[in-house]
C-alpha cells in the first residue's frame, strides 16, 4: 500500500514537471514547417479568427487560434473599429494595427501549450482584458498537468485510505 501511495504521488509530481519542460524550453521539430494562415480581426474588446472565406460575425464566440506544434503561423491582423495591438506571450511579438490596414505577423509555433495574445494599444475601458488564445497542439502542458491534478488528489485521498496506521 505504501508503494501504491508513492507511485501515485510520483506521477502527480511528474504532472508539474511536464509543463515546465514544455513551457521553458523552446523545441522546434526538425521538418520544414507547414504554413498556417489565419485572418485575425480585432475589435473592442476581442479577437475574431476567421477561417478563409468566412464572414465576420459581430460576437466572437472565442478568440482562439489552434495550430500544430512546429507550424509556421502567418497572421493577417486587421482592426475593425479603432487601432488595436497584438502582443503574443512567450514570443515577444508586439504590433499595432490601424483600421483599414493589414499587418502580417509570422512566427513558428515553437512550444506546445496555450499562449495568450493581448491588445497592447489602449482601445477603451476593457482594453486590459482584450485577450485571445493561441493554442499550440498537442497541448501537453494542459494534459500533463491535468493528469497531475488527478494523481495529486488521489495521493492525498490515498494518504487517508492507504496509510491509515501512519497518518
Amino acid at each position, binding site marked *: 500500500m505504501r508503494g501504491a501511495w508513492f507511485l501515485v504521488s510520483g506521477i502527480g509530481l511528474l504532472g*508539474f514537471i511536464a*509543463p*515546465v519542460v514544455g*513551457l*521553458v524550453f523552446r523545441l522546434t521539430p526538425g521538418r520544414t514547417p507547414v504554413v498556417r494562415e489565419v485572418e485575425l480581426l480585432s*475589435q473592442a*474588446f*476581442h*479577437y*475574431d479568427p476567421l477561417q478563409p472565406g468566412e464572414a465576420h460575425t459581430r*460576437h*466572437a*464566440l*472565442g*478568440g*482562439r487560434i489552434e495550430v500544430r506544434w512546429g507550424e509556421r503561423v502567418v497572421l493577417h491582423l486587421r482592426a475593425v473599429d479603432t487601432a488595436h495591438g497584438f*502582443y503574443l*506571450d*512567450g514570443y515577444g511579438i508586439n504590433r499595432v494595427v490601424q483600421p483599414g490596414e493589414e499587418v502580417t505577423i509570422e512566427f513558428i509555433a515553437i512550444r506546445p*501549450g*496555450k*499562449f*495568450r495574445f*493581448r491588445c*497592447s494599444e*489602449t482601445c477603451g*475601458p*476593457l*482594453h*486590459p*482584458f*482584450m*485577450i*485571445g*488564445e493561441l493554442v499550440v497542439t498537442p*497541448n501537453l*502542458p*494542459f494534459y500533463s*498537468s*491535468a493528469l*497531475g*491534478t*488527478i494523481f*495529486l*488528489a488521489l495521493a*492525498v*485521498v490515498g494518504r*487517508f*485510505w492507504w496509510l*491509515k496506521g501512519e*497518518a
Partner: protein
Amino acid sequence: MVVRGMARAFAYPRLELTRCSLLRRLVKHRAFQFMLILPNLAVFVLVLVAAFLGTPVGNRNFAIIFVWIVWWAALIILLIPLAGRIWCAMCPIPAPGEWLQRLAIVTRRPGRPFTLGLSWPRALRNIWLQNGTFLAVALFSALILTRPLATGIVLALFIGLALLLSLLFERRVFCRYVCPVGGFIGLYAMVAPLELRVKDPQVCVTHKEKDCLRGNAEGYPCPWMAYPGNLWRNIDCGLCTECLKACPKENVGIFLRPFGQDLLLARAPGWKGRSLDEAYKAFIMLSCALIYSAVYIGPWGFLKEWANLSDPAGFALYATGFLGVNLIGLPGVFLIAVALARWIARAGIPLRRLFVELAYALVPLGLTGWIAFTLSFVLVNISYAIPLLSDPLGRGWDLLGTASHPWTPYIPELVPLLQLPVLWLGLVVSIGLAFRIAQQNLGDAAKARRALLPIASFMTLIVLLFQRLYLG
C-alpha cells in the same frame, strides 16, 4: 486520534511575537493604528482625486491601477494569506467615522462616544449582508474595475456609508457586518498564520472587570464587538490592538501559529459554530474566482461585452448566470457531493449540517483560486503602474521621468507555472481539511475516509476547471 479543536483552546503550537518588548511597546502605543492608517489614507486621497479629476482611461489612471492591481494583488497574495485581517487595521475607509465617534484620532478620549449608539439588529449579526454587498459590487465589476469614475463613486459610497453607520450605530458595524471587502478578508484571514488572542482564557474568566469589553484609560472597548476572552477565529477580530492596550493583565498577545487553525475549530465557548452565512461566503468567493477567470482572462468577447453592460439583454443574461452560479450552481453541485458523502459514509448527521460544515473545507481552495486568478493579470499589467508614478492623473505630467515607460508584461508565458503549484497547494490543503471536518462530524476515521471521496472529487473538478481556463 484526538479530534483537534474540540477539547481545549489553542491545541496548536503558538509563538508569542509580542514577547519581543520592542514589538509589544509598538503595538501598545496609542498611535500604532494611526501610523498604519496614515500612509494608506494619503494614497486613498490621491486615488479619489485621480478617480474624479483624472483621465477616464482606466489603465492610465492612478485610481484603477493602484486599487485594482497594486492594492488588490498585495491584499490577496501577501496580506491576507500571511497576516489575515491586517488590512482592516490599516484601512482608511472606516477611519473618518471612527475618529468622529471617538472625537479623537490618536488619544483615548474618555466619555460618551459621538453616535446614537444603536445596537446592530440581531437578525443581521452575521455576514449575509456582506455576501449581498459583495455580490452587488462583483456583478458590476467590469464597470468598477475599468472606469476611474465608477471606482471613485464606489469608494466614496463606502466612506459615506461607514461614516453614516458610525453615527447611527455603535462601533465599527460597517466593517463587521456591511463592508463587501471585510467579508472575504475575514473568511480567508482564518487561513493566516498570525493571530491576536488571549494568552490564557482562564485569566479572562476570573477577571471580573473585563477592561477589554468596557474600555479603560488605555484603550477603547473592542470596535469589532469581540470579547477577546472568547475570541477564537481571525474572522472576528480587526487587529486594531485596542484590547492589547486595555488589558491590565497583559493577557492579550499577537501570535505566530500554523496556517489555517481557525478552520479546524469545531466548537468553542461563546461561538455558535460553523454557519451557513460563512459557508456561502466560501461558495461565492470560489464561484467568482472561476467566473472572473473566464470573463476577464478568457477569449470570449461576448462575455466581456455582457459584463460591460454593452447591451441590457446581454447583461441581464450575464447577471442571471453570475448570480445563478454563485447562489445555486456551485452550492448545488457541492450539496450533491455532500449528499453522496453522507450516503456512502452512512452518516446520521442532518444533510444541511454536514453541508455547512464541509463548506469550510473550500476556504483554502478559494483563496488559492483567487491568488491564481490574480497572478494571471498582475505580472502582465503591473507595469501600467510605472508611468502613473509620474503622471497619476493621466494629464501628461512627468514628475519622476517614468511617464513614457511602455506597458511591459513580465514573464506572461510562465504564469501558469506559478498558478499550478498555488492551485495544487489549495487542493491538497482543502482535501486534508475536508477529512478532518468529516472526522469531527462523523466521529470515526473509517466514515470520514468514505465521505472524503465525493468531496475530494468535487475539489479536483474545481481545480481542473481553473486549469482548463488557464492552460487548456
